[in-house]
Structure formats: structure tokens, C-alpha cells
């Protein structure tokens, strides 16, 4: 790539911590699906005189993240008010952290585009409260108005800020995936929750102004927004135009970014230390924070203990639930289980928008045992898997593989069972047979295919091939 066109990306990632209660009050944080304004109290509604009370668990979770991402925790940190007017903030300020964040200077290792380990530096992480949720309406007067739900107001967030170390949208996506799996392993975050992660991206082409791209709320969106921005900025540069330093808004539905704030409206947040909260002195707590086995360590252990490939190990450990699932059935046959989970099951689940915890591990374990014991072919195995998943998808009891095999007659056709089918296929296709006998070996595939069709994939193709050619060669003699 032309070095003058080097892409420089830094990310700011907001993640909801999965505490039981909000950051500054005891309202339940389990607000998903609840009617609007039912998880609120005087504190998270910003009523006059209400005082914030900091959630200890949120602080511990932030320290866990800090330790896992190799950050330093300063002796002293404090909260600050970020002042701005917007209806999602009932207090007209957000309690955040400004110049004294809870942790600074860490890193996370990812793989770069060439497959090498790359260190992405983390500038800082800080704690802050989530604002409420707005629903924009268009009124009869076309002016419009907003509906506000404060259930989300004061849900604890950590903001993780990276240095501008990322060099491509793909790399940014990989960083986010790695971060997500790390946070899930730490059990501080539920990535499946809608809006649990929100990303702002700073992006520039080397030597030109930086653009901040806000409002990216999905993993896929990050790559899309960055790709759009790179193309937009490169086109401007090619035409000799100037890149304005600005904030742009990502419109997920249209996959584009639009300019959202002109310079004179640039916010001055007038940060100042939050007078209603005492500072934190939690550096010494870090020693007591215990980390679980993290994704990289688990990947290495999978390769060591189960003898599976690095690609399988990486896929299986990228998601905590998938890794746990694999370990439940690895005993059946570690390699076969790795192949079936990483290469087949995940795709079939994705196709049905299902999650891995919607299927019992024992069913997949039994399926792999049938394949291991040569009781069914791989092709039938996929059919059994699909039948099980379709049942799970319809919220029915998941049938056991052996029952599906028996019911659908999917058991591998053995030995003598072939003979009659082979004979009838040979009889029905004289042209192919004579082609084969005339030396056109490709005709064998056609005949084998016919037998496969007749036996609905229950025959082992290798065995069938051999048997068919023996049968045909015998005809010649």
C-alpha cells in the first residue's frame, strides 16, 4: 500500500457492565424489555437534592478489566461532571471521569492482517453513567419531539480508549472481537445485550486531519463505518480537497457517515470534579482482583490438551460459551468435536440466528460419537444436526441423534445392502456403464452419485466407489 495513504484508527469503546444495579443508585440494571421509566428513582432521574452513591461492584469490574488489559491503576482517581444539554441527561450533566481516570496505559494483543501478533495500546479506561434512551417522533407540526425513557439512565459503562494503533477496518474489527471475548471471559459484560457496546472511531489518513465517527452500535457497523470514511477521505484527498476536522455521525441503516456538528457548535463540556462523590483510592485493591483464564491462555491450552489446530482453537475460544460447549464434548473425540463445532455447528447456528446455549451439548456429543463409531456418514451427520437445530429453533424438545437416525433410516448402509442398489443403478444406466467400460472413468462418479441418491447419502462414498468399480470391472470380464 502507498505509505502516504496509511490509515490511522483509534477507538473509544463504551461497554455496559453487567452489575445488578445502576452506577449511582440501587435501581435494577435489568431494564431490557421493561416498560419505560419503571427502573428509576430520584437519583437516576436527577431530582433536586438526590445524591449519587457509587456501586462498589462497578469499581471492581473496572479494576478487573484494567488488570486484564494490563493497565496501571493510579493511586488517586475521581469523577467529573460533563456538562451539556440534551434530554437523555436529566441532570444536564453526565457523571464521568476526566483527567483522573480509574486506569491508564495498558495494551491488548491481537492478530494483524498478516496473522502476526500486534500490540494495541490502551490509553485509559474510565467509569461513567449511560444516558437515558430517546425515541424521536415526528409530530403533526413536523417539528417533532422526543420521548425519553430513563431506565437506561445511570447504567454503568466503562469507556475504553485506544491509542491510534489500528491500521485497517479489519484490524479494528478484530480488536473489538478480542476485547468483547476478553470482557465476556471476565464476566463483566454481556455482549448479546442490545446496545451493550457502542463505539466511536477516530480515523485519519496519514498527514491529514482526523475525523471522529460516532454512533456505531454493532461490530459489523465498525467495519462498515470505517470503510466508508476511508473511501470518503481518500476521494477528497485525490481531488486535492481539504479534510475538515469534524465529528460525523454513522447512519447504520444507510452505511454512511454524515457531518453532525459544525465548528462553532463544538461542545465545551466544562468538566469539573464531581462534588457529590468522594475520590477513589483503589490501587491496592488490584492485588485482590483475580483473573480467570483469558482467551489466549485458553486457546493455547486447547492446542496443548486436545491437540487441535490453532485455527480451531482460536475459533472455539473466541466466544466463552462456545469454548465451554466444546469442553463438554471434547472427551468424545477432541479433533472430531473441534471440526464439528468450529466448522459446521457454528455456521448452522448462525444460519438460524441461534445461540450455542440453545442446543444441549449432550446431543452434539452423541452425534459426534455416532460419526466417530462410523454409524453414520458425515453427510447424514449434517442432516441429523439440522433436524436437531430445527427442533430447538421451534422450541421443541431436542431429539437425540440416535432417534433421528433410526426414524429417518439414516444409518450407514453396510456391505450387502449396497449390492441390490448398485445392480439396479447399473441396469438403469446402460450408457454410463458402457462409457465407463470404454475407458471414460468419469462415468463412475455419475453411477456412484446415483447410488448415493438412492440411499440418501447413507453410503460411505469411499467404500461405495470401490464397490462400484469392482462391480463394473467384473462386468467387463
Amino acid at each position: 500500500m502507498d505509505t502516504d495513504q496509511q490509515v490511522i484508527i483509534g477507538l473509544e469503546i463504551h461497554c455496559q457492565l453487567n452489575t445488578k444495579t445502576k452506577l449511582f443508585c440501587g435501581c435494577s440494571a435489568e431494564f431490557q424489555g421493561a416498560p419505560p421509566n419503571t427502573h428509576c428513582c430520584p437519583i437516576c432521574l436527577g431530582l433536586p437534592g438526590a445524591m449519587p452513591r457509587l456501586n462498589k461492584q462497578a469499581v471492581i469490574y473496572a479494576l478487573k478489566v484494567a488488570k486484564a488489559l494490563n493497565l496501571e491503576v493510579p493511586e488517586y482517581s475521581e469523577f467529573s461532571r460533563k456538562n451539556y444539554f440534551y434530554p437523555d441527561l436529566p441532570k444536564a450533566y453526565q457523571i464521568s471521569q476526566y483527567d483522573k481516570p480509574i486506569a491508564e496505559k495498558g495494551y491488548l494483543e491481537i492478530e494483524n492482517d498478516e496473522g502476526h501478533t500486534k500490540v494495541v495500546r490502551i490509553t485509559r479506561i474510565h467509569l461513567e453513567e449511560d444516558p437515558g434512551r430517546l425515541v424521536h417522533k415526528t409530530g403533526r407540526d413536523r417539528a417533532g419531539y422526543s420521548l425519553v425513557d430513563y431506565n437506561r439512565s445511570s447504567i454503568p459503562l466503562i469507556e475504553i480508549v485506544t491509542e491510534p494503533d489500528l491500521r485497517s477496518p479489519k484490524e479494528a474489527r478484530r480488536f473489538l472481537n478480542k476485547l468483547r471475548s476478553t470482557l465476556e471471559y471476565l464476566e463483566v459484560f454481556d455482549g448479546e445485550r442490545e446496545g451493550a457496546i457502542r463505539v466511536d472511531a477516530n480515523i485519519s489518513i496519514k498527514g491529514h486531519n482526523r475525523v471522529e465517527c460516532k454512533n456505531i452500535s454493532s461490530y459489523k457497523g465498525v467495519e462498515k463505518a470505517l470503510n466508508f470514511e476511508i473511501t470518503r477521505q481518500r476521494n477528497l484527498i485525490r481531488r486535492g480537497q481539504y479534510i475538515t476536522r469534524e465529528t460525523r455521525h454513522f447512519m447504520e441503516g444507510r452505511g454512511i457517515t454524515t457531518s453532525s456538528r459544525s465548528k462553532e457548535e463544538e461542545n465545551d463540556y466544562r468538566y469539573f470534579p464531581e462534588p457529590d462523590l468522594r475520590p477513589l483510592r483503589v490501587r491496592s485493591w488490584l492485588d485482590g482482583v483475580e483473573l480467570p483464564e483469558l482467551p489466549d491462555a485458553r486457546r493455547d491450552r486447547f492446542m496443548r490438551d486436545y491437540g487441535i489446530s490453532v485455527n480451531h482453537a482460536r475459533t472455539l475460544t473466541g466466544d466463552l460459551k462456545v469454548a465451554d460447549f466444546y469442553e463438554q464434548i471434547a472427551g468424545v473425540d477432541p479433533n472430531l468435536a473441534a471440526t464439528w463445532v468450529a466448522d459446521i455447528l457454528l455456521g448452522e447456528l448462525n444460519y438460524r440466528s441461534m445461540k450455542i446455549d440453545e442446543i444441549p451439548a449432550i446431543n452434539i456429543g452423541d452425534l459426534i460419537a455416532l460419526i466417530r463409531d462410523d454409524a453414520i456418514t458425515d453427510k447424514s451427520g449434517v442432516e441429523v444436526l439440522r433436524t436437531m437445530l430445527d427442533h430447538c429453533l421451534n422450541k421443541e424438545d431436542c431429539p437425540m441423534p440416535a432417534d433421528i437416525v433410526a426414524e429417518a433410516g439414516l444409518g450407514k448402509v453396510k456391505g450387502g445392502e449396497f449390492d441390490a442398489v448398485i445392480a439396479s443403478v447399473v441396469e438403469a444406466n446402460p450408457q454410463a456403464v458402457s462409457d465407463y467400460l470404454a475407458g471414460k472413468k468419469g462415468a463412475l462418479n455419475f453411477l456412484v452419485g446415483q447410488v448415493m441418491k438412492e440411499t440418501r447419502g447413507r453410503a460411505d462414498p469411499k467404500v461405495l466407489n470401490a464397490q462400484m468399480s469392482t462391480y463394473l470391472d467384473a462386468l467387463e470380464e
Partner: protein
Amino acid sequence: MVNESDVEGIAKLADISISKEELGAFTSRFNDILEYFDILDQVPPGEEGVPDLGNVLREDVVTPSLSQEEATANAGGTEDGFIRAPRVM
């Protein structure tokens, strides 16, 4: 010392409109307040005052929230349990 354009800027950030006539009065009041801080700065730092507490935290235990009716009772307008707000942006 602050001047009139500082006060205009602060008023804008605070979403308060100040007329041209009021601007002079507010500017001198701002400066009066800042002068009080100059006086406070002369007080020698001592042992007294607010103790330097840190780590004032609460346990992660759920406490009851308000009902939707209570939570929205002070709102200027509501719709389906939401609070109605003027559209910003």
C-alpha cells in the same frame, strides 16, 4: 477578571438568554464572586475542614424503584409512559 464576551459564552453554554442590558450587570456580579474567591485564597490551609475520605461505596444490592406514575409525575408531558421532551438536534 471576566469580560462581557466570557459571560455571553457562559450564558450560551448554560442555555440561558441574557439581554444586552443585563450583560453588564452579570459581568460585574461574576467579578464580585471571583473576588470572594481571592479572599478565600488568603485563608491558610489547615487541619480543619472536610476529612479526606475516599472509597465511599455501596454494595450492588437492588432497592425498589419508583412507579412509572411517580417517575413521570413532574414531567411536562407524557406519552405511553415516556416523558415528552422537545426535539433537540
